[in-house]
């Protein structure tokens, strides 16, 4: 097995452990879009843990770059207007779907949720179709 596949498996295992920590300690599902989006609809006592999780996420990226361990390669990104459109679509879509790759893809599938299976199948298929259209039909 290729080295990067091992890294992916280990990285994935760490994602599972991080999600497990949030469930065991905080009783919550580690779904990033929901954690972000629900800060816009604040309920008493329900915002601080979300901000703490999000600060952790951003800090991981900052730390990886600051330690010089990682150079984030973003050369594959589309141009500015397509990128902005994609961002809006991701924000709006994940909120309507109640989840993204983490909440539906990792946590939902682990929980055996039918909704998450439908959501994950849908966003995977549409994303693959979009890449096909951009790369092979353009």
């Amino acid at each position, binding site marked *: 097995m290729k080295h990067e596949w091992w890294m992916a498996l280990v990285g994935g295992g760490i994602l599972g452990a991080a999600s497990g*920590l949030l469930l*065991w300690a905080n009783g919550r599902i580690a779904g990033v879009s929901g954690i972000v989006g629900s800060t816009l609809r604040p309920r008493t006592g329900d915002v601080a843990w979300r901000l703490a999780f999000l600060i952790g996420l951003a800090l*991981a990226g900052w730390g990886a770059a600051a330690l010089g361990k990682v150079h984030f390669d973003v050369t594959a990104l589309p141009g*500015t207007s397509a990128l902005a459109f994609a961002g809006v679509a991701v*924000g709006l879509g994940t909120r309507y779907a109640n989840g993204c790759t983490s909440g539906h893809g990792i946590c939902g599938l682990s929980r055996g949720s039918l909704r998450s299976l*439908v959501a994950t199948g849908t966003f995977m298929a549409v994303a693959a179709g979009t890449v096909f259209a951009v790369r092979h039909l353009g």
Partner: protein
Amino acid sequence: MNKILPLATALASGLLFGAGLVLADMTNPGRVLNFLDVAGSFDPTLAFVMGGAIAVYAPLYWLGVRRKRPLTVNSFDLPTLRRIQPRLVLGAALFGLGWGLSGVCPGPALVVAGAGVAPLLLFGAAMMAGMVAYEVLEWLAARPRPVSEVPQADIAPAFAVTPAER
């Protein structure tokens, strides 16, 4: 219960989650787009990420929810929806469109934006705008409509005069 402890565990979870995304190379849009390019330069690495994550989380989830309560707060707060609604499918499709165009989903967006990489700061801002738009649309949908906007068919039966009364 302790007020600081749940914040510390949430912070640790976020840090660990971000580290996992970096190690797994989910923060590289090119890698993600190649995974999605099943008809071209297909790269299966992402399937290993999902596999590794589910292999670890599934047992942790099923053991965790058997407990009376979580370690730092009083109760679990877990999804309760079961219905497959149109908005679930349409939302997932819209997310898929954005993901397929960019190779970026919410977690990696925040990690790489945290490193100060300009295009991801733009993506993150656009994503927030989309989420704000969602809140506005939900608010508009939930708002009671003024009587003048309610279709007559909706209110007419309440005032309808039956032939016998006439």
